């Protein structure tokens, strides 16, 4: 068991962890968090297991299980394992990964090195948006142990962060999802076992390696331990990134971000592929258990408040149209189905009083689900269905021609 607290520094208290260093440079990083302890694979694996850390890129896959998934026999054969820190962050409502790489790049680098070291003899990549290339390359240049990390610019599209799309991009092919018969942990980049972690996940790993799983779990809830970064938008304000304890109340998070939750009719949790939580549900906790009844998960921590004065169907229709335009253009049911859904939703949003529209939307959502080479159509269908369910009163008002909300 680890739990050994780095001796020269004290572990961050409160919910300000990832963002607790006063500056982004390496010296400040070391002064704040202490050096990264050398990790023994078994110790790191068990610390991650006990921490309950889940992926922060949206998939919420237990971090330890990804490590454990790299086949032991591959490692034994000395095959080079590839580890990728993923900050493609293609979701337009999210900016927490870019923010993290700007304020605490060294935690991400530490996490990447810790994972790579525990799998020994690896190739490492950081896949980041163009806006933070400078900040990350500066950070990499500040330390000798990061010389082998390859920094690559992420493609600018919604699907660019999908695991197989990242691998495809790094291999020099189109940055789109692949239909693949093997797991990436068995055969990914150049046929090597490949492990992708979201950069926030890596930053948490860097802290767990230092301060241990019990410290990690001292914030958050049992089903969402630790802290997480969230990007909050709404109320006409520019988006803000904040670090919160897992399972924080949605209304509290909005208040903390300076947005009055009383002015919202609902919150879109999880971004454009997420689901709505109606305002009537009260101060719902941002953890898996509490969100499950809405079909939502904390995902990548994306929260968009819907202004109660504005028509949610108009907003949803704009999102569906955007999503239809962002498919990777590869799979027939996805390409055709999403544009059909977007057009039906826009007819409804514009006030066409055809009572068959909601049923047609449901039929199309059902038709595209599971019928793509990635989960893009599934996420889009989930969003559309959630819109119909949570804003049922608005749907009925549109069909009756009585919606009085603002439609811009």
């Amino acid at each position: 068991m680890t739990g050994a607290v780095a001796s020269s520094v004290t572990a961050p208290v409160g919910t300000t962890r990832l963002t607790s260093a006063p500056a982004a440079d390496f010296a400040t990083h070391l002064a704040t968090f202490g050096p990264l302890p050398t990790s023994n694979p078994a110790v790191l694996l068990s610390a991650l297991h006990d921490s309950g850390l889940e992926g922060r890129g949206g998939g919420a896959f237990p971090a330890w299980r990804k490590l454990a998934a790299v086949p032991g026999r591959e490692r034994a054969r000395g095959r080079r394992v590839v580890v990728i820190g993923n900050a493609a962050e293609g979701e337009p409502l999210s900016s927490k990964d870019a923010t993290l790489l700007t304020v605490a790049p060294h935690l991400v680098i530490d996490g990447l090195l810790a994972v790579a070291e525990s799998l020994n003899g690896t190739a490492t990549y950081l896949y980041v948006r163009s806006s933070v290339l400078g900040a990350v390359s500066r950070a990499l240049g500040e330390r000798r142990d990061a010389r082998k990390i390859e920094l690559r610019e992420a493609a600018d599209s919604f699907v660019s962060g999908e695991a197989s799309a990242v691998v495809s991009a790094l291999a020099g092919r189109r940055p789109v999802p692949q239909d693949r018969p093997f797991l990436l942990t068995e055969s990914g980049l150049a046929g090597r076992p490949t492990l992708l972690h979201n950069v926030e996940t890596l930053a948490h790993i860097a802290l767990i390696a230092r301060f241990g799983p019990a410290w990690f779990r001292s914030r958050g809830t049992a089903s969402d331990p630790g802290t997480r970064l969230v990007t909050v938008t709404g109320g006409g304000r520019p988006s803000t990134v904040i670090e919160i304890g897992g399972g924080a109340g949605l209304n509290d998070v909005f208040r903390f971000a300076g947005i009055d939750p009383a002015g919202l009719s609902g919150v879109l949790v999880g971004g454009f592929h997420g689901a709505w939580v109606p305002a009537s549900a009260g101060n719902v906790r941002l953890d898996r258990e509490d969100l499950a009844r809405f079909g939502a998960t904390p995902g990548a921590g994306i929260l968009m408040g819907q202004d109660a004065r504005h028509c949610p169907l108009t907003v949803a229709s704009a999102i569906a149209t955007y999503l239809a335009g962002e498919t990777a253009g590869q799979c027939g049911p996805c390409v055709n189905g999403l544009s059909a859904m977007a057009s039906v939703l826009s007819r409804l949003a514009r006030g066409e009083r055809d009572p068959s529209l909601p049923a047609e939307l449901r039929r199309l959502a059902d038709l595209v689900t599971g019928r793509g080479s990635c989960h893009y159509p599934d996420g889009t269908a989930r969003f559309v269905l959630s819109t119909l369910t949570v804003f049922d009163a608005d749907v009925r008002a549109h069909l009756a021609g009585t919606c009085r909300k603002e439609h811009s």
Partner: protein
Amino acid sequence: MTAPRSLLHIDWTACDGRGLCTEILPELLARDDWGYPLARTRGAGSDVPVQERLLDAASEAVALCPRQALRLVLGT
């Protein structure tokens, strides 16, 4: 004991939706609004369960698919 399940996997990145497979395997596959194969088993998505007696026809569809978009994964 449930019988081993064989699956017909559709690679949507390759399929062009002309529907040859749906003619060879009408019991398994219908066509959707745009012509793409649609599993008759609800919720099957990209991996369509194939009963034992249809395995030959499924292999034929794999061999004849002009885009090599089909793969048969035999249940073991």
